[in-house]
Each structure stands twice: as structure tokens, then as C-alpha cells.
């Protein structure tokens, strides 16, 4: 119980609640879009750089390589069983897009989890950042392949995008490129580079994370409000209960799978938590961007809303401390 309370009373979480409260109170509080974008770029840059520096200080061992391998395989496998689970309830295109969304990762949830560990003084390794970057893309490809394979009659119309374009979008998506690039720069410049960037990358990190989560609170709460049953005259009511159930169930299932792998790999407490968070989180930047391009048949109102308004807050509020408690109990 104490892990939940200490999580809920941490500054980043409280700022997330402030964002939610602002929407509930119909306040005009808003973070300008370009500044919110800057904050997300900053977080990716800082976490990439920190991970790269940590990587330069450690030696490459078998646990690290095995973890990276498991991370990639996991992000390719999650979409497959997610697709099977959802296929009966959602349309083919929506199932494929949701599967890809949940196979991929949420960088912000990961960053928040590192903040959570830092605040508790629990160590974690830089290579988990590499795992996060590697897990962004495979799910996108698997999602599209699933759609193509099961949607035989739709293939004629689905030919309208090029694989080249999709690969470029999934591998060189801005957020993926920034994390990987910052990580390489952190790795090359090492401790010396960290000395120079420390005020920006370390000292300001939690404060800027707070501001970012304030914005996420606003965005997520608005989405959640949009979930209310549609009024008369507006068409396209989505199965809200279904989205809620799937958005709550999928992270729990994926966390269990991630937990199993983390225990099998013998990861340390901090690393195990980050690995489970990677498994349980759902993308709302890289995957939606790629899906809108390659699979426009899928409704962003389903996959984007589920990951942004349901799974993200769930992981943030309950997920991270719950996974942590489970790991403590198991290790």
C-alpha cells in the first residue's frame, strides 16, 4: 500500500492530476502545442543521453544482449496474441492497429518509471533505454502483416501504401531517431559529456517531466471525456465498454508476460520494473503516426484513445507501483 501512496504523492503524478483537474473544472489552462512538443523532445533527448552514458560505463554482457533480444521478440509477439484476443470484438483494421499499439511502447511511461526509480534511489541500467528504442518499430510491421494476412479480400485496396514509406516511418520516426541518436551521442561522449550536460539532462529532468505530465493530464482527461456516449445526431458510437475493458486488460496481461521474462532473465529490481513497464505500455506517438499512414482503415478513435486515455493513466497511477510491488515480492 505504501508504494501506491508514495507514488501518488510524487510531484510528477500530482501535476498529472492537476492537468486532469483543470479539464474537470473546465479551466482554460493549456500548454501551447509547440511547447508540449518541445517538452517531449527534451524527455526523449535526456533519457536517450542518460542511457547512452550509462551504457558507456557498463560492459556488454550476456544478460544485456539477452534482454535486448527478448525485448524485440516481445514487441513482435504481443501484437499477435493481442490481435487474436481482439479479433472477435473489433474490426479487422482496428484489431491490427490496437495490436501494434500495445506491442510498441510508451516512451513517456518509461521515462516516468525511471523518474519513479530515481526518486526511490533504485538503480537501473542504460541498456533498457536501448530496449525501449528497439521495441518501437517491430510491432508496427507485425500489425500491418497481420492485417494483410487476415484481410485477403481487402488487399486490393490496401496496396495503396508503399512498404518503403512504412519502413522509413517506423524506423526513422522522429521520436525513435531522437532516442537512438541521443543514446549514441551519450555513449560516445560518456562521463565527460555528462559533466557538460548535467544541469540540463539531470538537474532539470524531474521539473520538466512535471510540466510534461501536466500537459498529458489535460490531453488524457479530454480524451476520456470524449469517450462519453455520443449525442444524438452524431454517428459512429464506438463500443466504449469494450474499449475500456481492453484498455485495462491488455496492459495487465502484457505486464504478466513481461514479469515472467524479467524473472527468467534474472534482472535487478530497477531493470525488471522498466522491462515490465515496456511490456505493459502502449504507444501513442510512433504507432499512431505509422498506422494513420499505412492502415487508414483503422479508426484512431479506437487505438489512440485506448492507449492515451485508458492505458497511459492506468500505468502511471496504478501500474508502475503495482509492477514494483510484484517484482519486490518475486525477487
Amino acid at each position, binding site marked *: 500500500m505504501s508504494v501506491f501512496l508514495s507514488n501518488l504523492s510524487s510531484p510528477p503524478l500530482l501535476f498529472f492530476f492537476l492537468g486532469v483537474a483543470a479539464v474537470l473544472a473546465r479551466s482554460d489552462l493549456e500548454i501551447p502545442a509547440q511547447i*508540449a512538443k518541445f517538452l517531449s523532445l527534451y524527455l526523449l533527448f535526456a533519457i536517450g543521453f542518460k542511457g547512452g552514458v550509462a551504457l558507456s560505463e557498463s560492459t556488454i554482457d550476456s544478460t544485456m544482449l539477452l534482454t535486448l533480444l527478448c525485448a524485440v521478440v516481445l514487441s513482435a509477439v504481443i501484437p499477435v496474441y493481442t490481435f487474436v484476443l481482439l479479433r472477435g470484438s473489433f474490426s479487422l483494421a482496428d484489431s491490427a492497429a490496437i495490436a501494434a499499439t500495445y506491442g510498441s511502447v510508451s516512451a513517456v511511461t518509461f521515462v516516468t518509471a525511471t523518474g519513479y526509480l530515481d526518486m526511490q534511489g533504485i538503480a537501473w541500467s542504460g541498456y533498457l533505454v536501448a530496449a525501449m528504442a528497439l521495441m518501437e518499430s517491430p510491432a508496427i510491421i507485425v500489425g500491418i502483416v497481420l492485417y494483410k494476412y487476415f484481410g485477403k479480400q481487402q488487399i486490393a*485496396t490496401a496496396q495503396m501504401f508503399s512498404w518503403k514509406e512504412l519502413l522509413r516511418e517506423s524506423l526513422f520516426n522522429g521520436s525513435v531517431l531522437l532516442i537512438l541518436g541521443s543514446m549514441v551521442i551519450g555513449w560516445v561522449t560518456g562521463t565527460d559529456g555528462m559533466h557538460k550536460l548535467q544541469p540540463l539532462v539531470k538537474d532539470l529532468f524531474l521539473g520538466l517531466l512535471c510540466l510534461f505530465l501536466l500537459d498529458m493530464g489535460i490531453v488524457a482527461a479530454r480524451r476520456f471525456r*470524449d469517450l462519453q456516449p455520443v449525442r444524438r445526431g*452524431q454517428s*459512429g458510437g464506438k463500443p466504449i465498454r469494450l474499449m475500456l475493458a481492453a484498455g485495462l486488460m491488455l496492459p495487465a496481461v502484457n505486464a504478466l508476460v513481461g514479469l515472467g521474462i524479467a524473472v527468467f532473465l534474472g534482472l535487478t529490481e530497477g531493470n525488471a520494473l522498466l522491462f515490465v513497464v515496456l511490456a505493459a505500455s502502449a504507444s501513442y*506517438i510512433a504507432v499512431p503516426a505509422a498506422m494513420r499512414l499505412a492502415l487508414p482503415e483503422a*479508426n*484512431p478513435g479506437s487505438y489512440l484513445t485506448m492507449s492515451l486515455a485508458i492505458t497511459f493513466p492506468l500505468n502511471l497511477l496504478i501500474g508502475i507501483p503495482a509492477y514494483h510491488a510484484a517484482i519486490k515480492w518475486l525477487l
Partner: protein
Amino acid sequence: MKPCKRIEIVIESPMVPSLIAILKQLDIPGYTLIPDVRGSGDRGVRRADELSGESSNSLILIACDDPSTVEQLLAAVRKLLSRSGGICLLSDAQWLRH
């Protein structure tokens, strides 16, 4: 003044390059693009307030005075919209030539 058709299309932003490619194919040289438009429709509310505009749409405005080109354009646009959702409006307009 010259009579023409005014075509307004709201479409998912990532589909815009495909639409512009169609315009090029049909030799329609002019269009006006308004990015980051938001609203509500078949696919729910689009707020366009996310980090990298994951739910933003774009509005494209086209004027065309050749009926057969308009027909071809509408056929191609219907194909696009049937995949991604969106709306296409066609109206009579007067083109102020200057």
C-alpha cells in the same frame, strides 16, 4: 467571373501526399492546404492537441472549371476517403479571374 466547381476535402493529414499526387496526375495545378484542422465526425472528436498531431486532419480547397476533370477527381477522392474517412464537399462557385 468564371463559373467553376469548388471542392473542399477534409482528410487525415498523412493522406495528403496521396491526394496531392492525384491532383498532379489530373493536371490540377492549384490547391490550398490548411493543415491541423480539427472537429468531429464518424471517427469521433478530433482535437489535434496531441504531441505530434496524431489526430489532426487537413483541409484542401480546390477550384476546377473542367467538368470531366472534376468527375475524375471525385472518383479518386472517393477511393481515398473510403479508406481513411473524411468529407468531400462540392459546390458551384464563381471564379474571380484577375
